[in-house]
């Protein structure tokens, strides 16, 4: 059963109150809510505005600036594919095409059944291991799972993702 509005408001409030930052800013509040709810809802923006004493549109300006904030509830699983320069040179495009094909997506977004959310990432921070894929915040790369051949890695990734899809 979906959360009622009151429950949603309460969880936003909790996330705002609990944030562990030296100074509470619009950005820290946005991060706290994204961490706890997985996304920034419209009501969250309202509440951040009143909590930090800024205005709705200011908060939106900050939130929409950063591509890492999302504004709709995420899928159950979260997949990121790196398309930064290093990964690109190491064959990210092939991995990306496989992942998109397996998920039936044309670009980043959520699958229809909301099982998987896909996001492109410009750097996952482990360029030496590329091309990288992150599944539910766990990094997967050819060297990390022992696939020497790019084709093998693509197949492994497809398998992992099809497992996610099955649940």
């Amino acid at each position, binding site marked *: 059963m979906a959360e009622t509005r009151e429950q949603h408001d309460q969880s936003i409030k909790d996330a705002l109150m609990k944030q562990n930052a030296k100074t509470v800013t619009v950005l820290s509040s946005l991060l706290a809510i994204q961490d706890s709810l997985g996304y920034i809802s*419209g009501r969250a923006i*309202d509440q951040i505005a009143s909590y930090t004493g800024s205005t*709705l549109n200011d908060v939106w300006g900050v939130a929409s600036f950063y591509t890492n904030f999302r504004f709709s509830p995420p899928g159950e699983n979260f997949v990121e594919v790196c398309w930064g320069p290093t990964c690109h040179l190491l064959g990210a495009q092939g991995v990306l095409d496989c992942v998109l094909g397996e998920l039936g997506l044309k670009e980043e977004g959520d699958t229809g059944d909301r099982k998987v959310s896909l996001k492109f990432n410009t750097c996952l921070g482990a360029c030496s291991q590329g091309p990288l894929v992150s599944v539910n915040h766990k990094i997967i790369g050819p060297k990390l799972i022992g696939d020497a051949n790019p084709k093998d890695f693509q197949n492994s990734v497809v398998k992992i993702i099809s497992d996610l899809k099955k649940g």
Partner: protein
Amino acid sequence: MASENSEINLIIDGKQITTQTGNTILQAAMESGLYIPYLCYYPGMKPYGACRMCVVEVENGRGTPASCTTPVAEGMVVNTDTQQIQDLRKGITELIISEHPHGCLTCHRTDINGANLCGPEDICLRHVSVTDRCVSCPKNERCELKDTTIYVGTGLTTPMTYKYRNLPVLNQDPFYDLDYNLCIVCARCVRACDELRGDNAITLTERSGISLVGPAYGSSLLESGCEFCGSCIDVCPVGALVESDYKWDKAVESTSTTCPQCPVGCQLKLEVNKRGKVIRVIPELEAEANRGQACFKGKFGLDFINKRSRLKSPMIRRDGALEDVSWEEAMSFVADKLNLYKGSGFAALSSSRSTNEEAYILQKFTRSVMNSNNVDHSSNMRPEVTEILGDVLGYQAATNSIWSIEESDCILVVSSNVTEEHNVASVAVKRGSKNGSKLIVIDSREVELTRSAKLWLKPRPGTDSVLLGGILKVIFDESLEDQEFMNARTDNLDNFKNSLWKFDLKKVQEITGVDESDIRTAARYIAESDSTSFIYALDNLNDAQRSESTRSVINLALATGNIGKNNGGLYPLRSGTNDQGSWDVGCVPHLLPGYKNLHDSAARASLEQNWGLNIPEETGLGLKEMFPAIITGDVKAMMIVGNSTNFSNGDLGDVLESVKNLEFLVVQDAFLTDIGMLADVVLPSVTFAEKEGTFTNMERRVQPLKQVLEINNTYAMPDWWIITELAKAMGYDSFNYHCAAQILDEISNNIPFYAGIKYDRLLSKEGILEPAGIPNFPIPSQMIPASGGRNTGIQWPCLDVQHTGVKVLYTNIDDSNKFSMQSLEIVDGTSVTTKEYPLLFVPGRVLHDSDDVKIEVINNKNVIVRDEVLQLNPEDAKRLDIGDFEMIQLESVDEKLTFQARIVKESFVGVVSSTTLFGSLITQLDASEDPDPMGNVPTLKTKAVRVSKQGS
């Protein structure tokens, strides 16, 4: 800082320049008439440095800084036009242009090089793609970007490759058309909304190449807190933001005049097209009254001038129908009729939009020709707010200027719907609050300013005066008063202090429902601030409560020493556009011009001598007494100078019903209004844009109206002309006026504090008007001078023709004339509820409320659709058996409304409140054809209601 106002010398392009510390290079250059191209900079806004157009070289400095963000320093040597800078600028414009359609620059048929191959009727020869054509941009030929690009010499001969963003053109907001394909993301609009208006309704969304301007999460402007002031349109350098009406029209002339919509008296440039229509309104950037701001009423509500329903010729009722007649016939008919009603059976009403001259001539006509003192102006609904002020201080007017509110340390707004009624004054309040002034709002309604308030005291309706008394009590209890000021300038202190004993804080808390601690906080804010501005309209109180609240506010100002101070003072908010002027020139029953008492026989005699006519001594009837007197038969004939007189707000009872009892009614109006339909004679008058005259605004500033349009297609005449002709037709040849300026001369001869105010002076050079002249470099459209120049007016008292007016009243200490502290009473706060209607309904208007708002497009305009919410106290809800979220019905004497119930603990027992969105008001205004649309929109007036479950 000691160096704050010191001067700095620098050299720009070899020219020695002296400027103030803190200015940027760009400002210094502009001050001395040097031009540096810029796009994102705008006068009055903080430096932003987005467009980089204004780069300069500073000798011995590093790189090429943007001159709009670089502060001047002593001995700086700046070059703005070296080869390197020119190359850089060209590169920068190319970058900007590479995201902007620019067929207008590259088409070989445009007139960039002096050859205009494209005539007005020509068909575009498809030199460029359809989205790129000059004619598909609404700012074609008045585009700052294009002018700047040409100025910097970016020689574009062929179109650059660029990606048309192909965003939809948004044309569904009530007044704006938004085409973000043309946006260059200079963020002027975002900053105007935030810095200039204090609204922050739009923001920059996303980033880098896809960055755009818009309200939060893709919502519409209606929901985002937009006031529809049009400030963003005024500052936009390209065609991204334009007015949707007359979007494609080109202006051939622009004239600056005074806005007729409210007492702020904004100076507006009216742009006229070649067919003589007013197509655009641009607020004057350097006018002292509005400083470049306008509001939805001024910016978008002046289209009535162009309406075809304007009255065309005089009409006389014959056999029940109004028939067109000539002026001669109408005049002799009215003159004959009025000759029968001389004396107290005649009453006259001027309009809230009558100029000083018209109000003056009408009262002169009524007094001397008609031998009656029954003369008033139709917006004189709350005389208490200023009358008491006049009694205590001397002048019935605001003590300071509008924009000094912004500089006050504390701003107290008492029961005033400023954002709607006096919009630009609310800008000063919001800007002050944004810059750290403590804004205290005392209002039982949720008005727009409560959003910016540091402290919102929400007294039970009708108890505002008790709350103010409580605040005064705290000030004296805690010895926060300005003793020095009180000793020097006030008397009657003992009586006043004795009267304060009644306001025990516990009791005040009980009566008003406001927490004792909040009252104390408010008192400390007011008393401990260096300067406090007091703004009060008191528009939802009854007369007795209003008088008492006015006394309290004046007491507060005196107790805290905020009289005769630069940034602190009293601002009574009158309702009509020219209420101030109407009072000044004596268009009220009991006062002669210049606030001289009617019963003062010396004053009357001197005026009689000046006029060469007699003035009756008998006290006249005021606005509120006239209509009952019609029913009793005391008033038999009436003359109403209309121009949309607002009789529809219900304060006066059923005016339309009472005027039916008149034997003879003359109405002067530009439109056939409801009251005109009942008249025996209707005389067509012209609108503000077609006549000359003066308005006096809420800060005592006398500003001229200029004739923007010729009188076209109609025999309408200015109201002053009609009245003088009528007097002449009745045999009074001394009413021999041939222009409004002549009447103003007579006013200034009769009123000492208008003595130096002459029409030619208001329009002359004397530091009041700057000569028109269009510079040869591109500037924002708002800065282009109107023909005939701009006016800043003169603030009375202006004692002679050398005097430049007075900004702050009562700066001189006058021992013989001390201000008397007013004793206070606790006025019964019980309101208008009756047995039948036991609850009190308190409406409010807020700008943003994200709950359940749906925007629907009706007739190509956005309309807000939502269940209106009514807040009730749990106790009332229980008694009425109403649950949360239940649909309920609200009934008052004159209306029936459906609401969704919300049970809110904070609301008072016996009080139900609702808020409607500001945006929905806007759409209502747009749908109205009335010149004074505010009259048709429900005011935020408390009234008695009953509530029941729907269907029960």
